[in-house]
């Protein structure tokens, strides 16, 4: 029976299509399947490229993933704070120093807020910065090699959350503490938090040529929680804004105790004033201990240096540098519009958005219209700085970004939606549901003077039934919306990796042309590099055995090694001789307690192997490099500790 119905329906449908032909009265939906506008908008044909790069933080993966928009295709996972056996990052001798901290080797972190470097308030595509939340660190990643080049630890900080946002000319990358802590750290009762714990806001200077980071100063603030931040831009360039919560300074059950004040603060920092102060000798040098890890592209090797001092600044020593703007309901996102005029507080326990006016703020400061103070820091009157309120009707606003047309887009976690509203009139223009419980959102350039407002990507926290189930844990879902029209249009739904807390997007044309294709072998300054197969050798230094190995399609030189003994520490220094784009070689040896190596053309990487068993053990290339990849292998003979076999190595003998 059912079959008959389908058949009848099918015939009917077919007939309907035919009757549409040539009568000039075509049904409006009849060509819908071929127009398929949404599919077309995200479809990037095989071999074609996406229009934007999107860099999504990995959250608890500790890394950064690279996607294409609008397709939602993932291109790469860049290891940052976490060991990454895929490439050997954090396992290889060259990269282990990247994960050094004052707590020792820390092979994981919680990466949150990527931000792309800027020049004149516009994305310049040189570097992307990201914060490690757990063991406070800021990383700088090259947008030429797409590799982590530098990590600096942040002392006096804990839960490095209101980070890592750059000022308009990347003068500073800024890192604020979520947890206030005793500064300096000391043994004291937790109950004495109030008035004793403090929060450090760190301004890390960025060398304009190489990007190298250095903590210029830390502002030691009252013991609130500093949640998110963003720089002023345009007219407000020179200022930085931080949301705070727990202005109650509770040390326990914050879900109750930090919500007792109707208003918390946005801290407005005139960093230019503080910079001038420290340039003139202001501030106090404090003993500290923090790691500064730098990767050198020419040696393909990182070094870690412990720094012993940090310059701290007490905000009340610099009148006119720090103010508090009362902002309702534990604000999360702190976002500044492209003109620099509006500072948006997303009160996460609120239904409304609070928008402060930079001009009003300056007028109130000049008029000295203060409403008391907190720890000597003047509090401005809410009504004096307020520009407007968005009565959204949504619940749980978290984060706002902007397009280039004077519109803002805010996520609402509790009501699971993105709300589009107009700057200046504060009217809600559109709202669209997300699936489900959205955290941050991202518009390429959406936190700069020049947004590229074609798409918004909503980064959701809850996935549930959006994809085929894969057990209790689901990758987080993202949704991409077309925002080129008056109304937002949901285009596509794609899974992300880890837990993206935030993302940064940039037009592909700004990055793709300068992406590194391979490293020049002639520039390789690695002390254990093998620049030609003839330079291959094996050198014993006590129990250490250094194997200078070269790789080319498709063999290792040497591929037969003898004279290694149980108890030796064998260093495989593998140099990839290839000089072609996308021809890495891999290296893996049986029983290695580390990981494989994935060696880019022109690069040298080192892995340690400590053989425990006598025998003849294989090693091979893990990357399918050529038609003879399966032949790319070798043997290393391990003799008893007391054997007297001489070191020897060969290829093709």
């Amino acid at each position, binding site marked *: 029976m059912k079959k008959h119905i389908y058949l009848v329906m099918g015939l009917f449908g077919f007939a309907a*299509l*035919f009757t*549409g*032909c*040539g009568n*000039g009265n*075509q049904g*409006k*939906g009849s*060509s*819908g399947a*071929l*127009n398929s*506008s949404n599919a*077309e908008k995200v*479809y*990037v*044909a095989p071999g*074609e*490229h*996406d*229009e934007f790069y999107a860099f999504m933080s990995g959250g608890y993966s500790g890394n950064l993933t690279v996607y294409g928009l609008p397709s939602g295709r993932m291109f790469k996972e860049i290891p940052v704070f976490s060991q990454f056996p895929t490439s050997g990052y954090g396992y290889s001798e060259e990269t282990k120093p990247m994960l050094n901290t004052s707590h020792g080797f820390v092979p994981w972190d919680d990466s949150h807020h990527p931000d792309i470097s800027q020049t004149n308030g516009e994305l310049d595509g040189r570097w992307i910065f990201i914060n490690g939340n757990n063991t406070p660190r800021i990383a700088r990643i090259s947008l030429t090699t797409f590799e982590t080049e530098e990590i600096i630890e942040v002392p006096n900080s804990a839960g490095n959350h209101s980070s890592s946002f750059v000022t308009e000319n990347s003068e500073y990358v800024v890192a604020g503490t979520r947890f206030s802590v005793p500064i300096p750290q000391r043994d004291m009762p937790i109950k004495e938090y109030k008035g004793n714990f403090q929060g450090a806001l760190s301004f890390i200077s960025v060398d304009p040529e190489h990007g190298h980071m250095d903590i210029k100063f830390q502002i030691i603030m009252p013991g609130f929680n500093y949640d998110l931040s963003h720089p002023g831009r345009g007219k407000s360039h020179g200022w930085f804004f931080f949301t705070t919560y727990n202005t109650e300074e509770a040390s326990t059950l914050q*879900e*109750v105790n930090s*919500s*007792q004040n*109707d208003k918390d603060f946005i801290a407005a920092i005139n960093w230019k004033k503080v910079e001038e102060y420290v340039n003139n000798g202001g501030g106090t040098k404090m003993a500290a201990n923090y790691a500064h890890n730098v990767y050198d592209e020419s040696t393909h090797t990182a070094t870690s240096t412990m720094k012993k001092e940090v310059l701290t600044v007490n905000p009340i020593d610099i009148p006119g540098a720090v103010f508090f703007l009362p902002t*309702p*309901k534990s604000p999360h996102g702190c976002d500044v519009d492209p003109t620099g005029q509006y500072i948006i507080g997303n009160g996460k*326990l*609120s*239904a*409304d958005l609070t928008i402060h006016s930079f001009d009003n703020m300056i007028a109130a400061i000049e008029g000295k219209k203060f409403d008391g103070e907190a720890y000597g820091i003047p509090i401005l009157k809410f009504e004096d700085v307020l520009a407007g309120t968005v009565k959204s*009707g949504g*619940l*749980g606003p978290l984060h706002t970004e902007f397009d280039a047309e004077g519109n803002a887009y805010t996520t609402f*976690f*509790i*009501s*699971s939606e993105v709300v589009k509203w107009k700057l200046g009139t504060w009217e809600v223009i559109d709202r*669209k*549901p997300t*699936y*489900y*419980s959205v955290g941050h959102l991202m518009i390429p350039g959406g936190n700069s003077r020049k947004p590229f407002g074609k798409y918004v990507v909503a980064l959701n*926290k*809850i996935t*549930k*039934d959006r994809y085929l189930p894969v057990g209790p844990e689901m990758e987080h879902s993202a949704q991409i919306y077309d925002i080129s029209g008056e109304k937002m249009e*949901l285009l596509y739904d794609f899974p992300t990796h880890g837990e993206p807390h935030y993302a940064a997007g940039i037009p592909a044309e700004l990055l793709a042309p300068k992406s590194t294709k391979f490293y020049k072998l002639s520039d390789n300054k690695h002390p254990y590099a093998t620049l030609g197969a003839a330079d291959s050798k094996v050198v014993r230094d006590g129990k250490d055995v250094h194997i200078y190995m070269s790789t080319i399609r498709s063999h290792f030189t040497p591929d037969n090694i003898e004279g290694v003994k149980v108890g030796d520490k064998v260093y495989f220094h593998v140099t990839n001789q290839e000089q072609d784009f996308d021809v890495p070689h891999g290296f893996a040896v049986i029983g290695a307690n580390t990981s494989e190596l994935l060696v880019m053309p022109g690069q040298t990487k080192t892995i340690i192997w400590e053989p425990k068993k006598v025998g003849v053990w294989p090693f091979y290339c893990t990357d399918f490099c050529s038609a003879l990849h399966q032949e790319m292998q070798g043997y290393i003979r391990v003799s008893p500790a007391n054997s007297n076999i001489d070191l020897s190595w060969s290829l093709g003998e």
Partner: protein
Amino acid sequence: MFPTINLKLMVLSFLMLGVLFSCKNEAKTETTPTQQKAGTEEVQKQGQAFIKEDGSTPNVLQIAIGSPDHTTLVAAVQAAELENVLVNAGPLMVFAPTNEAFAALPEGTVEDLLKPENKDALANILKYHVTAGNYSKEFLMKFKKLGQANDQSVTVEVVGDEVLVGGAKILASVPAGNGIVHVVDKVMLPPTE
């Protein structure tokens, strides 16, 4: 990239229509209002409130729906289209007035609030019954006030062994997957400012 693809797709669709129907003039791209409308309807039925039963602990909405004493509340939530608000990760604490509590309001109040033109007022009242949090009756005694989802605060008073939230007494409490439902004997009316 886009112009190329658009062009290719348009050419493709043109060709296909040509082949299938031999229409010479009709193969123009046009918007498809019917399709979009269907899409919108679909969207309205989406959201976490409409996920198929997956064996998880019932959420605050499911608890209310399952309670014979809360049919008025459920009808009101549906009228205000707040279903999806009550099923998110939370934590949410819902003060759920019984049917009796609604019946105690002045005659005609509930009927009025359920009218489509009063949807916002109804939503405001309902959100005044929701806190972001998950606290037992005993634990609530630690509070002096709670910040409610409509952006107003409700007072918390301890009277003897009882805790009164906005003057309402907690009759029973049911833990939920995304929070807790406190059954209350009174509809809490948001203070007018």
